[in-house]
């Protein structure tokens, strides 16, 4: 088993800070922004991204910016995959209508979760725009989806595993790649 670390805690912090700048630049300020994390690890990442935005724009409240969007009910593998439990959906401010939604996830891979997230978003309301921010883009898309903001592009082989660990859930911050046959998480 060969495992190497691609991003450490400080690099993740820097990547999120840069994404926060990009989000603010694309949105021309924090007005109407809502950052929705995709469970499990997208949720703490969205909260940290909101904190990074609040550091840049001190007038904004990080807590009122970040939320969570459960995509379980919109997945396309519900009938073939394992049993899945839904996670809570939390929309800060109660509505996404006419706001700019930034979906936050840890790894962008096939693009299927993002498709499910887009369906989940449209079931909740009609946002002004939807953007996608991911910590890691590992390639191998199976759907015509791309990220607007990427922490790091990591070219990977299909049989490698990209593991994202975050302090809030796993007790440490790291992004690792494990070669085929290894155990990434």
């Amino acid at each position, binding site marked *: 088993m060969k495992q190497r670390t691609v991003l450490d805690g400080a690099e993740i912090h820097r990547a999120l800070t840069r994404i926060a700048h990009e989000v603010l630049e694309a949105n021309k300020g924090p007005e109407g922004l809502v950052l929705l994390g995709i469970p499990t690890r997208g949720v703490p990442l969205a909260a940290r991204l909101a904190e990074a935005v609040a550091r840049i724009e001190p007038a904004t409240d990080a807590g009122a910016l970040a939320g969570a969007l*459960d995509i379980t009910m*919109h997945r396309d593998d*519900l009938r073939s*995959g394992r*049993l899945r*439990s*839904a996670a809570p959906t939390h929309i800060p401010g109660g509505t996404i209508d006419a706001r700019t939604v930034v979906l936050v996830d840890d790894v962008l891979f096939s693009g299927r979760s993002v498709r499910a997230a887009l369906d989940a978003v449209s*079931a909740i309301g009609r946002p002004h725009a939807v953007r996608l921010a991911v910590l890691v883009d590992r390639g191998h898309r199976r759907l015509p989806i791309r990220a607007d903001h990427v922490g790091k592009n990591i070219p990977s082989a299909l049989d490698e595993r990209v593991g994202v660990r975050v302090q809030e859930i796993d007790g440490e911050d790291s992004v690792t790649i494990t070669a085929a046959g290894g155990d990434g998480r």
Partner: protein
Amino acid sequence: MKHLLSTSELTRAEAIDLLDTAEQMSLVSTREVKKLPVLRGLTVVNLFFEDSTRTRISFEAAAKRLSADVITFSAKGSSVSKGESLQDTAQTLSAMGADGVVIRHSGSGAPHRLAHSGWIDAPVVNAGDGTHEHPTQALLDAFTLRRVHAGLPASAPADGAVGRGLDGAVVGIVGDILHSRVARSNVHLLTTLGARVVLVAPPTLLPIGVESWPCDVVYDLDAAIRDHPFDALMMLRVQQERMHEAFFPTAREYARRWGLSDARARALPGDCAIMHPGPMNRGFEIGAEAADSPRAVVLDQVANGVSVRMAVLYRLLTGQSTAASGREGQS
């Protein structure tokens, strides 16, 4: 979990998972699109061999909110009145490609027979069988109780109760325990979730073997209210349609001794929720003051019923287990 036939076969983890899923399902009713695409393309058949309004409508609403196609079959006006057996009805449905079956039957054990006979391979949900069990009613009662016990509104969407059991709650179930599938399902589920259950009933309306159930039994409602700090009191309907003997002298005597009169409702702890599986016989097992008081969560129970049944259908009709076996035997 392939079928939901009885609450006694649910583990604590499974029960809490169902209730948590129901919490997420309850949020759907607040959304712009009040539907989830989860069961798109699947057919759920509601087999109702016994009269029911709220359970049938609740299951229909639940399946429709999950985008399933729903076929509702009631025994009246069907081939059952021509003498068709359960087996033939089930095999007909199987041939038509039912992906899930919800069954209510006056015979105790009919859902179990349907699930294990090999007539049909779809998951089976027991929606009440005779005097045996009514698991989804118990789940919605537990769901409502969990909200109330956590100090949350009984039916408005809230996340606060997720992951919790009912540890420390004291629940009284009053009335016709003998004929009540609701009581039986509730005793198992509520104790699995950590609550203490006290049954209050005239001795004639208690089933044989009740002393082996995991609960206390009291014959006197006033004594029970005095001795137990109830978090909720569940009044059962007196099921006169199942009573072919004299279980109590007169209806008035029953109402006087085991009905939740206005005076008894006032003697309850201030935060005690009043529950009833419906339909209520006002003035019989429950007085008007209790039925209309803000502590009565009867309508919340109905509202939560849809969320709980959505969770049950979601659990049974998704996941690998169904995909692998769902189409077998349907030649």
